[in-house]
């Protein structure tokens, strides 16, 4: 009986030890190459399906292939925001530095995803609907999401006290994550009210099986990419923030 308890508690303890930056730094270093490998595998498969398997679209010709990047980066921009807010929230509640550092590491990745969503959306809209920008619900919400990311990054950059920056950023991210559904709903409402944009980028071509596979593979590729770059960045952040600790000074890369 007591053996079972010891086993489960030691199992839990072994995971919690990675919440300290000194233990997480080498672990992250070992994980990064694996995630890059997965990124390349999924990316190759995704691009193969996007260009050589998915058929031509009847209405949009070859131009529709942009959805194989546009939709994945849009999904990732929203997914990363939620993950970032979760890490930030955990850091606030549990008072762990590493959680806040993860949130800080993820923010630029998400912001770039949001930017690419807008860029690819524009390059898709121009040939299909004749305009570089349409105020449809999805693109407009994506623009607002980019503002939320930039606000988070700007707030953390402008507060000198690191722990205060962590907590203030966490509050902003949590307020943002609650507001994103409200904003999306209000933008959809606004869209239907004004009836101006009869075009909608949400009217994607009718999905062939292969098209869905292409998007899923590309999305997986971007997910692995985000984890890889996130781990890389958090390692740099850890070193910057823990610069005066012993374990950093003892690192192999620093001693040589």
């Amino acid at each position, binding site marked *: 009986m007591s053996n079972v308890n010891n086993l489960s508690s030691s199992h839990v303890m072994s995971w919690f030890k990675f919440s300290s930056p000194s233990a997480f730094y080498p672990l992250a270093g070992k994980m990064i190459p694996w995630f890059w490998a997965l990124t390349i595998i999924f990316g190759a498969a995704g691009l193969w399906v996007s260009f050589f398997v998915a058929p031509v679209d009847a209405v949009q010709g070859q131009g529709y292939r942009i959805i194989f990047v546009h939709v994945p980066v849009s999904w990732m921009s929203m997914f990363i925001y939620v993950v970032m807010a979760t890490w930030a929230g955990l850091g606030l509640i549990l008072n762990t530095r590493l959680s806040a550092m993860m949130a800080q590491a993820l923010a630029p990745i998400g912001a770039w995803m949001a930017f690419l969503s807008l860029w690819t959306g524009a390059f898709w809209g121009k040939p299909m609907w004749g305009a570089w920008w349409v105020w449809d619900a999805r693109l407009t919400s994506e623009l*607002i999401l980019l*503002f*939320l990311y*930039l*606000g988070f990054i*700007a*707030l953390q950059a*402008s*507060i000198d006290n690191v722990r*205060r920056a962590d*907590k*203030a950023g966490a*509050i*902003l991210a949590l*307020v*943002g994550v609650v*507001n994103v559904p*409200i*904003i999306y*709903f*209000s*933008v959809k*409402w*606004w869209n239907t*009210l*004004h009836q101006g944009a009869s075009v909608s980028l949400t009217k994607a071509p009718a999905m062939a099986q292969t098209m869905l596979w292409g998007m899923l593979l590309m999305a997986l590729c971007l997910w692995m990419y985000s984890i890889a770059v996130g781990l890389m960045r958090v390692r740099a952040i850890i070193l910057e923030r823990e610069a005066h600790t012993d374990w950093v000074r003892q690192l192999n890369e620093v001693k040589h």
Partner: protein
Amino acid sequence: MNAFTAIVHRDLLLVMRRKSEVLTALFFFVIVTSLFPLGIGADTALLRKIAPGVIWVAALLSTLLGLQRMFAADYADGTLEQLVLSPNSFTVLVFGKIVAHWLVCGLPLVLLAPVIGIQFDLDVQSLKALMAALLLGTPVLSLLGSVGAALTLGVRGGSVLMSLLILPLYIPVLIFGAGAVYASNVGLDITGHFSLLGALLILALAFVPWVSASAVKIAIE
């Protein structure tokens, strides 16, 4: 006199001693709305169309101007710290500050709006809708604004940063508020917009004072 009334009374008293700050924000509202006809042209049909959006955006911007004052002065002279340490619930005190801010920055906008609306040739029904929408919406602006003000307390370049943080959060209020006036203009049903504005107000009242209080405490410690 309980803590809430005391704080509201105190903030109002402080504002009355510096009336110019408040009046400049209102003056800003009037000037900005006047810029649009000057920039776009005096075609009344066009003005009637853009009036809801223009008046609401001007209301957002002038609320932002007044938000600097909510916590900054008390933070600078140490009063805010005393308020945090006081035995009264800090959330109630923050709520009192928000109410005082709304009385000074939001309510005058509600009263001024019909005058601006007339400049844009809005009909009486739309003017009533405008006042009602602003009455429901400006408290939400003060509430959400307090979060931004608290997060950027004492930060370099805080006022511009605060605006960048808060404006995305203001968008739903803008959409439903301006939408209500637009719908009234065009003859559509306005109850949907008002229910949504009311829902936003209730949500904000329930959660925001506590969030702002936490944000202030983070800024102070």
